[in-house]
């Protein structure tokens, strides 16, 4: 993970990819002002999901290719520590990407995206995504068709997260009451808790051998 910060290859890929997706959406959807407000949260999360898949794949594939995963497994640390390390690393990457994408996004789309509640939804959403994504990426890098396997495994499982995050973000943009929104934030917290707990319990079996 430290190595990743040195090369910055993954981070820059995720960043450029995210920005490209944001731009592509602009051309694909003919976004006028009304449409922009309605779909902004959706565009943001589709971007996050795809860039996240890219990042998750690379982060574990690189470990596998370099053989450092075996090294890490031999290290006298708890396997779950490995999971949390990987997950926090992936989460951090997603947050760094978001830190750049959010301001650019709000600039290009002329929307107030940098505000506390949206940041909270991004924080919680990416946490859950990194949590379940790290587990499934650890699975998929050990399969034959590994680059295409991760999205197939991850996207259907991440649907509730996507729904909750988009609704929370969209609700904030539409200036809804907290009583309307709290439900979505609760759901995000519940998803994060459940899936990180499950991933923590089963991660041992994924990296065995």
């Amino acid at each position, binding site marked *: 993970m430290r190595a990743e910060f040195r090369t910055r290859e993954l981070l820059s890929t995720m960043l450029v990819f995210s920005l490209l997706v944001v731009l592509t959406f602009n051309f694909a959807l003919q976004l006028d002002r009304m449409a922009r407000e309605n779909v902004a949260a959706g565009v943001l999360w589709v971007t996050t999901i795809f860039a996240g898949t890219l990042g998750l794949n690379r982060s574990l594939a690189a470990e596998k290719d370099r053989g450092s995963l075996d090294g890490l497994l031999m290290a006298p640390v708890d396997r779950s520590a490995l999971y949390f390390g990987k997950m926090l690393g992936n989460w951090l990457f997603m947050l760094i990407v978001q830190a750049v994408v959010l301001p650019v996004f709000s600039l290009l789309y002329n929307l107030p995206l940098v505000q506390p509640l949206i940041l909270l939804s991004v924080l919680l959403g990416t946490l859950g995504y990194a949590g*379940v994504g790290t*587990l*499934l990426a650890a*699975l*998929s890098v*050990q*399969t*034959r*068709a*590994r680059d295409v*396997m991760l999205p*197939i*495994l991850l996207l*259907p*499982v991440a*649907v*509730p997260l996507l*729904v*909750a995050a988009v*609704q929370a973000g969209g609700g904030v943009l539409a200036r809804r009451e907290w009583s*309307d929104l709290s*439900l979505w934030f609760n*759901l995000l917290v*519940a*998803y994060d808790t*459940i*899936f990180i707990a*499950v*991933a923590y319990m*089963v991660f041992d*079996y*994924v990296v*065995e*051998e």
Partner: protein
Amino acid sequence: MSLSNRTLQILNVLTVLLLVVNTALIFLYAPLERTMGEVQRIFYFHVGVAWVGMAAFVVTLVAGVLYLRTGNLRWDRLGAASVEVGLLFTFLTIVSGSVWARPAWNTWWTWDPRLTTYTIMALIYIAYLMLRQGIDDPNRRARFAAVYGIVGFISVPITFFAIRIWRTIHPAVIGTGSETAQGGFDMTQPMVVVLLFSIATLSVLYVCLMANRLQLEKLAERVEQLKARILSA
């Protein structure tokens, strides 16, 4: 896990008989529903296959947990077979539901929470099968499949919950009248009897398909062993 050939044959015959009786009950015994008419008869089949589809994935979940606990490949075979059979029932549910929805709701498809969740669930288990195909080592395949079977299953109720509150918060989307149409008729006594019989029959069909599927697996393994013996000799 596997039955002898004889028991399997008896089970096969029994299943066919039950299916025939079930069809007869649905078309001859069950009363005609007043508002929807004949098309409502698909309901007995639809609810039955939907129930079995869900139950099959519960079997996969339990088998996955048991495999991770015991490391016995038998559980893995059970889980995988249950996904294959379960997917069959899931597609039957979606198709029979569409056929019913066309006259009842005047559309083949609505983004109703139950429908959407069911479809996403089908996609999860298709992914499960693809994951299995991508791994050669049987032990690793079993472990990964068990893990994904657990993660996938847990996400299903959360998906349902998320989509349901999403739809209730946005009243504009509900307009299709799906909620009222769904609980839209009261069942009379004979209807309940036929429904229960149908569910039981389709459950037996599930058990029968599973038994045959596991038998097939066993035979395939025998073939592999024999091949290996011939090659080594």
